[in-house]
């Protein structure tokens, strides 16, 4: 009996230690960024355009560039992934074709982002240049939308799984067609889940850098449309962190990182709220 208590105690110790490490790392990173960055964040910083020669310039073009990239990427990826999730969960039979599709989606999920960069660069920037204007928001978004497909498909499929089969059967038993069932029962019921999947995807898009460097380019002007090259907040941060040499640029880097962290925390909070709403609805 004694020995058991000791063994248990050791395990508990490990568990608390590990959890402490997880939490502390997060706290350290966030504090590190915010402490140095928060003081430089101001309304002007958010609303001024950027100029490498002006230490007091801001990040408005990158905010806009990020919004553009998020918007275009979602516009491309959301319909594709909703359809894919619907196909996989509502239509697909357990056969070879489905297996291939699932393998492809798992494969896409594990392709390193740098390989996406290589691919996007050689296809969208180089070969399709007449259509994408080379380095552009469009090239970046096309690359990213392929990259986030698996996340979106999987999370949406998870939502579809939580819809009890009884609801589908109820609908069919009332003489509804499959399309009617999907549009009147399945999609409305999974709306919250789809929204939180999208918010998760936004997080991915916002934090991605390597593929965007190679496809959306580094122009810091206010983007004029999807054919403009543009920096997102993250590639801007990369630029400041790797090319920034002055103290002012360092400060800007930390401030940009601060904004990024705030955005990320906000997005995660929203996901949580949405998830809670789903739980209420189901439970």
């Amino acid at each position: 009996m004694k020995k058991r208590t000791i063994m248990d105690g050791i395990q508990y110790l490990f568990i608390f230690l590990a959890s402490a490490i997880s939490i502390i790392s997060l706290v350290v990173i966030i504090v590190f960024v915010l402490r140095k960055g928060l003081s430089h964040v101001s309304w002007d910083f958010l609303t001024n355009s950027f100029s490498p020669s002006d230490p007091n310039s801001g990040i408005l073009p990158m905010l806009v560039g990020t919004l553009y990239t998020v918007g275009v990427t979602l516009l491309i990826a959301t319909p594709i992934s909703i359809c894919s999730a619907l196909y996989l969960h509502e239509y697909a039979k357990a056969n070879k074709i489905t297996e291939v599709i699932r393998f492809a989606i798992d494969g896409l999920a594990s392709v390193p982002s740098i390989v996406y960069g290589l691919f996007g660069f050689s296809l969208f920037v180089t070969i399709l240049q007449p259509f994408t204007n080379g380095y552009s928001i469009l090239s970046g978004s096309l690359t990213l939308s392929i990259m986030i497909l698996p996340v979106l498909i999987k999370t949406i499929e998870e939502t579809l799984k939580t819809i009890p089969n009884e609801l589908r059967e109820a609908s069919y038993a009332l003489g509804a067609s499959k399309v009617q069932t999907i549009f009147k029962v399945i999609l409305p019921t999974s709306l919250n889940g789809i929204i939180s999947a999208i918010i998760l995807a936004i997080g991915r898009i916002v934090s991605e850098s390597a593929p965007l460097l190679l496809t959306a380019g580094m122009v810091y002007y206010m983007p004029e449309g999807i054919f403009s090259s543009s920096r997102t907040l993250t590639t801007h941060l990369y630029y400041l962190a790797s090319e920034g040499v002055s103290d002012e640029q360092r400060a800007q880097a930390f401030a940009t990182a601060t904004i990024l962290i705030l955005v990320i925390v906000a997005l995660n909070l929203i996901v949580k709220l949405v998830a809670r709403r789903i739980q209420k609805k189901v439970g």
Partner: protein
Amino acid sequence: MEDIKFEVKHLNLYYGDFQALKDLNINIKANRVTALIGPSGCGKSTFLRTLNRMNDLVDGVKITGEINMDGKNILSDKINTIDLRTKVGMVFQKPNPFPMSIYDNIAYGPRCQGVKDKKILDEIVESSLKAAALWDDVKDRLNKNALGMSGGQQQRLCIARAIAMKPEVILMDEPTSALDPIATQKIEELIDILKKDYTILIVTHSMQQASRVSDDTAFFLLGEIVEFDSTLNIFSNPKNKKTEEYITGRFG
């Protein structure tokens, strides 16, 4: 003699390699309540779901034989299942209202058929809820979410939803097994009323319920129908030894 609603001939059903129904032959009479009883896994639900082709949704199901409904073989490929299901309504074991308002739940079926006129829908909703003895409970909160109702109310809503399609047959798969005694009693009373207008098939695990609500009873065992007769005969004078053992509780 009463009208025959379903004439089942040599019905076999396979889930992949597993044969769940074995050469069933049975005539279900119109405007009566037929109870399907038998131990777990004997094929009651499977049979019930064959009557509105709900099994089509399951992968790898193979069916042979014939089921003639009013003389037409509903197992034929030519049958439009959507049509069939509007004629053969279904109520499930667990109440499964859609996560929308009570009104929308009832109006769901008609709307899927293309009914758009608000007045007609209003009428359908009211009459269906009345038929399901639910109107008085909910008439003041038709726009509330149906998930806020009690289990018994939800199950009556599901019955109302089926009635709204003006079906000819209502299939019920253990409709009260998730309900408390009082809600169960209400549903049983409702079945008694509904049988005037509808042909009703009900799967139940409760001998008591079968004897209370049904006119005819079919006893299933391992995918076969062992005995089919009037409920009175089955319970008072079973011909088959297995039937007797089952209803007296010696197994199952």
